[in-house]
């Protein structure tokens, strides 16, 4: 059920000069969130910023078997992300959600390979947990500009999620874009693999191509400039191909990524 919660900041952990993880007391939203869904955050007072901004739910926080809130992984790039970076315990942040179409989970023996670029790590903590609960063997391919921007590595390894890392400066893992080790490992994989990806759009496009090249399906989570998150404004559109299997063939057309997505099948998207 959709809710708007004036959420108290439980804590705010700054991971680097730009990245932070902010914990918000919005248990009603956290409890209802499925992996890949997002919240619309309003951080300002009055008219600045006026509109909300979308954030994937990063973690669902539990203590003593009770859900106490959720966290958001944020990278400081604009007004809202600066407010989220600077927020202190006790501040309130308005949180609307959960919103959007989640990832489709797979079942064993199919393996799940999650591909994250930078702040695109955000949906993979909840997805990783859900996949492990399904007994799915899970790998995280995680790329960033530099090793100092790879976060939560222990969080994933301690759960038994295998890590494959790449950095543009080579400080950790392959000195390459993350799609290079993805391509290499897909070459060698012989079992069923489903690929999940979130990150910059050029990365998503590359992931979709690599997946298609190796005849694997991919689910990618896109981020477009979004006005409302609920299908009201038609700002966040992305082009998709005609629906596979539908009786009507339509040319590529725009759909609202907030309600038709943010998760799409990689092969359905038309990249601009």
């Amino acid at each position, binding site marked *: 059920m959709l809710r708007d919660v004036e959420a108290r900041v439980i804590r705010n952990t700054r991971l680097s000069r730009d990245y932070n993880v902010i914990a918000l007391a919005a248990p009603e939203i956290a409890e209802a969130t499925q992996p890949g869904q997002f919240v619309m955050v309003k951080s300002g007072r009055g008219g*600045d910023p*006026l509109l909300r901004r979308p954030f994937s739910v990063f973690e669902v926080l539990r203590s003593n078997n009770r859900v106490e809130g959720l966290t958001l992984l944020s990278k400081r790039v604009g007004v809202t992300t600066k407010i989220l970076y600077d927020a202190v315990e006790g501040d309130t942040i308005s949180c609307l959600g959960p919103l959007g179409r989640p990832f489709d989970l797979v079942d064993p023996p199919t393996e799940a390979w999650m591909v994250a670029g930078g702040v695109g790590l955000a949906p993979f903590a909840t997805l990783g947990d859900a996949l492990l609960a399904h007994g799915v063997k899970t790998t995280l391919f995680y790329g960033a500009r530099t090793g100092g921007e790879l976060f939560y590595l222990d969080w994933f390894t301690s759960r038994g999620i295998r890590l494959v890392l790449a950095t543009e400066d080579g400080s950790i893992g392959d000195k390459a874009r993350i799609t290079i080790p993805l391509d290499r490992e897909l070459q060698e994989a012989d079992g069923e693999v489903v690929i999940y990806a979130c990150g910059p759009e050029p990365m998503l496009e590359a992931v979709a191509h690599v997946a298609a090249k190796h005849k694997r399906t991919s689910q990618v989570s896109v981020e477009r400039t979004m*006005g*409302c998150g*609920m299908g*009201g*404004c038609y*700002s966040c559109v992305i082009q998709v191909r005609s629906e596979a299997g539908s009786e009507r063939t339509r040319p590529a057309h725009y759909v609202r990524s907030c309600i038709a997505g943010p998760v799409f099948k990689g092969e359905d998207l038309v990249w*601009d």
Partner: protein
Amino acid sequence: MKTLSGTDLSVQIGALRLKNPLIAASGCFGYGVEYAEAVDLSTLGGVAVKGLFLKEREGHPPERIVETPSGMLNAIGLQGIGVHRFIREKLPELRQLRATVIVNICGSTLDEYVELARILSDAEGVAALELNISCPNIKEGGITFGCSLHGTFDVVSAVKKVTPLPVIPKLTPNVTDVASFARASEEAGADAVSLVNTFLAMAIDVETRRPKLSNIVGGLSGPAIRPIAVRMVYECRRAVKIPVIGMGGIASARDMLEFIIAGATAVQVGTANFVDPFIWGKLLAGVTDYVRRHNIARISDLVGTIDTTSREKQWISS
């Protein structure tokens, strides 16, 4: 219709009785059904659905919106499913939700407006037609009518001839004298006018020197435009006898009251719904509280009651 407090919030738009003066603005509320989880659509005075052409439209490529100080600039380009799919896919659900549906129609030609009006008059569950003659974001039709007094007169009278539904032209603020367009609408038989559509505007990324919208220009909405919209509603109210439906940056009950006092019989809320889809109940509660505090029996008694005389009198008497 009286609320429990004994306050009558209902208003009259032509032959149409709205249970309250609060209408969801076209272009800001999808087809209404998207918001059913946030608001009981039957509690709203009306729901103005996204502008419809005869045929489906793709709209402009992204970027389609950009935020500006206290405002939002958009150039969506009227992406839409067309009138036939609307009647098939959305209207049954809107009927089930007991929404008072105001369909916003757009045409490239006068004949297209007439055809749309005919089709929608035969559909079950349409309460009124809003004529979009004011979208700043598409080249063909629409605004061409809205920027010419003759064009406005012609499209309103042509539509009036073919429909029994209340007809509400939505006026553009991108003209010198909006009141003259309200007058042309009234003379052509309009049941009400709604205003304002968005203000033509633009924003540029100085680093790349590129426009921030793919369409280069777009329409500005939100609190930034509110005082201009209030002034225009005030001017139109003085120019015509038909009801004026006011909109432009309403984000609180006080904003809504400001429009009503300026002369709006009903109001529409758009951009604020993006920020808070639960705003509707808060707006109605705030307005109810106001009329109760001021001992106003009917909200319609408040319409156009702006007092422009008292200060002058005080000056004279002192």
